């Protein structure tokens, strides 16, 4: 401290003799040392007070008291600044942890889009925050069935992501792609009801495509209805299925239905992040999606998903409001 005091006296005295820019610049460089050495604000004012006393001689009482007052209040100010810094550091730690968690989530929930000659599949899933509350899972057995689960956890961020790993675990235990959608939903409902917090609900659309017979069988647990496009009639149908959300009641039965897919037909499965956005409350968002898709139905399934995402993002002013997930299966 002695050395810092002497240095400050010199800089201050130079400045008092000549109020030059150079002396101000030197003063600012000096402050950098104080920060490095963690000198508190009250200490800085004390250094200044002592320097003034040294250069001027004894100060008038009221000036001295004014300095003491400033020292006193600066103790509190310094503490608040320190607290703020420490919170910023904590925030940074959390951010790093979050990045790691996101990487783990992406790794854990990674799913590969099946490549088959008989059916063309495309997908886009974009989280609104770091961690995704939507989840798509594909299952495939040796050429007979392809299954897909499109999931949305009610809620966002870390809690939703943790809940999602439960769903993934449930789907993993089912193992085979040839399970009936109603059976899959019943098993998942039991797992989620037992192991996840009461405030967490999951909606899920499960579809299974029978590759040999071109039959798409589906069931839904409170999920946004999928679209089915019939190419021959050039008409859209809603694949509605009024099942309860997963995780509410222990023993719930789920219905399943089936449709036959012909060439040019496709199914669009999505989460409510695609259909619900504030800006267009008065507008029928499902009609909007139908209109967009009609324009791009000549493209392959992946390109259709990409275009739909681009268009909806544009409608939402490039600021997603919810996790966005769409899967298209095209015959």
């Amino acid at each position: 401290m002695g050395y810092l005091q002497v240095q400050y006296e010199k800089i201050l005295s130079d400045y008092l003799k000549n109020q030059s820019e150079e002396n101000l610049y030197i003063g600012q460089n000096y402050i950098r040392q104080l920060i490095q050495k963690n000198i508190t604000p009250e200490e800085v004012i004390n250094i200044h007070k002592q320097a003034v006393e040294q250069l001027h001689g004894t100060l008038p009482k009221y000036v001295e008291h004014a300095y003491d007052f400033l020292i006193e209040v600066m103790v509190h100010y310094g503490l608040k600044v320190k607290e703020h810094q420490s919170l910023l550091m904590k925030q940074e730690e959390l951010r790093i942890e979050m990045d790691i968690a996101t990487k783990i989530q992406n790794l854990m929930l990674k799913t590969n889009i099946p490549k088959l000659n008989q059916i063309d599949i495309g997908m886009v899933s974009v989280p609104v925050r770091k961690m995704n509350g939507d989840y798509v899972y594909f299952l495939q057995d040796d050429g007979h069935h392809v299954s897909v689960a499109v999931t949305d956890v009610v809620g966002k961020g870390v809690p939703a992501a943790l809940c999602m790993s439960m769903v993934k675990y449930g789907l993993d235990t089912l193992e085979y792609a040839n399970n009936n959608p109603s059976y899959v939903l019943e098993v998942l409902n039991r797992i989620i009801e037992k192991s996840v917090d009461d405030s967490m609900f999951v909606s899920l659309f499960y579809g299974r495509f029978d590759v040999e017979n071109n039959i798409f069988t589906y069931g839904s647990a409170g999920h946004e209805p999928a679209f089915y496009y019939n190419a021959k009639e050039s008409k859209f149908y809603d694949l509605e299925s009024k099942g309860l959300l997963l995780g509410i009641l222990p023993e719930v039965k789920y219905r399943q239905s089936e449709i036959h897919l012909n060439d040019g037909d496709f199914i669009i499965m999505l989460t409510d992040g695609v259909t619900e956005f504030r800006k267009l409350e008065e507008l029928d968002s499902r009609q909007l999606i139908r209109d967009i898709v009609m324009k791009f139905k000549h493209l392959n399934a992946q390109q259709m998903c990409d275009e739909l995402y681009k268009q909806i993002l544009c409608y939402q002013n490039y600021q997603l409001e919810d996790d966005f997930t769409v899967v298209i299966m095209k015959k």
Partner: protein
Amino acid sequence: MSEKSIVEIVTEWDIVTARQQGRNEAKAIGFTTVDQARIATAISELAKNIYLYASEGDIIIERLEENNRIGIAITAIDKGPGIANLQSVLEDSFSNSGSSSVGIPAVKRLMDKLEIESEVGKGTKVRIEKWLKR
């Protein structure tokens, strides 16, 4: 071996009394103006905690002398609700960042040593020390 003074904290003005007594003692021991301000601020925070959370308690100020060095110790004792999770009060938190109080971690920064004991339903005891640098 040491002198003690006790200030009862019941009203907000008792916080001021405790600060004053602490400052007088710190000055008599030979602490610099800056350290006096720090000690008074630390006492102020402990007394404010008693006033806000326990409604009543004592601030005990004593002079310390050992191995040729001198210092000051302040003990805050209350029979308030106590603190269930001591770890949480020893960390900076967002909850007090907006308030006028600076919290236990800040008090620790002002002093050389801080000890805290607490039992839920029984009360809390915080002891802080600062030694005179030579």
